[in-house]
């Protein structure tokens, strides 16, 4: 039995799917498995299939990785709570096992936690995970109920995306930014200015941005992805393509005056109820509701921070100062003062560090950059 690590979320309906070939990988122990074979268009391949959990509650996805592929992103969507159980390379080695991380104070990926009706796995995650070997990979996905009991016979809609980007030192992220209805010109301009700060933060690390702006037809107050408004996020992301991420700009996030929030760590490139980052222009503007230079800077760093989460970056230290990310080159500090001092300028630090002004948070460690460049959406 797997113990739920996070708040149990309500079940969600099946996803709406974007374009892509559809295979049939109905995994059954009595039949030989079908293997998902990618069909590349440009640098990215997107293949959809279904797998079904066996009597032990685990479904196995077999993925044929061709020569030249650099990374894959698996998105599973089902009715129970989903989590990645094991990942095996073509040589049968378990390169990722949920039990290795279950009680660890370090977090590698949310995909190991059965906390939602979807799960997103990026592999490789870190530079130290090595290059992606060609051959047949196995990804085991567990379906559990809210009590943590494995559930057999559960169908999981699965999307596999592979990238062939052979340059892991430079890459571009395609981003759709969608504004809630009635967003003022000031908020629109403030957001555009903040995107320039985001671009500035990423540039030294070989990360580029290709941004498109859209007006949405939804209200000014939205719920955090995972907490609600799932149908809205499903619809917004279904309208997009399979090679971009979606940032939704709203006025306020229901019951949570956050600067921004990411749907999952990592996040998917295809349509799902959590496939968005939500940013509040109002909370970035502050009590006066207007943007000054300092607000713009922090707003841009917030967008870079939230998209960093979406690419799979965790805070180098969590707010209790007793949990850390799984990267080797981010300091493991354990007090407010020490962490402010050692990590306060890091892009993924959980707090802005401010006096009359806030320190610039635009540093990324080599491993943070390496993880960001490996994310399948960084092309």
């Amino acid at each position: 039995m797997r113990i739920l690590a996070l708040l149990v979320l309500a079940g969600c309906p099946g996803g709406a799917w974007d374009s892509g070939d559809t295979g049939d990988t109905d995994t059954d122990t009595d039949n030989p498995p079908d293997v998902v074979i990618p069909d590349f268009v440009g640098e990215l391949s997107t293949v959809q299939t279904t797998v079904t959990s066996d009597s032990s509650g685990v479904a196995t996805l077999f993925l044929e990785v061709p020569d030249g592929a650099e990374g894959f992103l698996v998105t599973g969507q089902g009715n129970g709570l989903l989590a990645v159980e094991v990942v095996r390379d073509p040589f049968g080695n378990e390169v990722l096992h949920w039990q290795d991380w279950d009680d660890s104070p370090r977090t590698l990926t949310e995909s190991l936690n059965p906390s939602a009706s979807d799960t997103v796995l990026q592999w490789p995650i870190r530079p130290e995970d090595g290059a992606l070997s060609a051959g047949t990979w196995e990804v085991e996905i567990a379906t559990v109920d809210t009590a943590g009991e494995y559930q057999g016979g559960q169908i999981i809609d699965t999307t596999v995306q592979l990238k062939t980007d052979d340059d892991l030192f430079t890459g571009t992220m395609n981003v759709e930014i969608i504004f809630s209805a009635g967003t003022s010109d000031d908020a629109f301009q403030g957001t555009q200015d903040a995107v320039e700060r985001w671009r500035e933060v990423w540039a030294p690390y070989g990360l580029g941005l290709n941004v498109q702006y859209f007006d949405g037809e939804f209200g000014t107050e939205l719920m955090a992805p995972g907490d609600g408004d799932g149908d809205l996020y499903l619809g917004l992301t279904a309208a997009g393509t399979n090679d971009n991420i979606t940032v939704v700009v709203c006025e306020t996030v229901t019951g949570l005056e956050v600067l921004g929030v990411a749907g999952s760590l990592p996040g998917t490139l295809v349509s799902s109820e959590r496939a968005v980052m939500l940013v509040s222009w109002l909370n970035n503007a502050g009590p006066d509701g207007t943007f000054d230079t300092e607000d713009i800077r922090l707003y841009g760093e917030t967008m870079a921070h939230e998209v960093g989460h979406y690419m799979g970056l965790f805070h180098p230290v969590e707010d209790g100062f007793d949990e850390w990310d799984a990267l080797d080159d981010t300091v493991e500090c354990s007090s407010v003062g020490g962490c402010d001092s050692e990590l306060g300028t890091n892009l993924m630090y959980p707090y802005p560090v401010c006096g009359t002004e806030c320190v610039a948070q635009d540093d990324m460690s080599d491993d943070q950059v390496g993880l960001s460049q490996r994310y399948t959406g960084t092309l």
Partner: protein
Amino acid sequence: MNGLLLALLVGCTGGKTPPEPAAPIEVDAAVVKALSAHDGVDCEAVDGMVAEPQPQLLAIVQQVERPSNVPMRAAGCLIERHAASSADAFVEWVSTDNTRGLALLLFNRLADLPEDIRTEVEAAGRKGPYAVDMSGK
């Protein structure tokens, strides 16, 4: 004798000198830190950090400028957990120049307020500088 007593009393009470304004409440650095989290903090947890959360949260709204989400989150916690004792502040937010952000936050959360306070805020909002913003909600 009576004259001397009167003079002493006048001296003790300071005569016509206006009363000293109350000293501003010192903002608690740990509360500000908690409120500044990129990914948010639970208002109940914030309340547990200080003996008197309402005046502390109000002081943060009034005194802390950076990061911008700190006064906004403090304001959200006042709306969520201390509305009954914060009505005067709410009316001020919708009536004063340079508080449009607080006013918009409040307009989005009107449904969360007790009815009597909601009525009071709406009445003030209709007369205030953000009446157009309120009518759009």
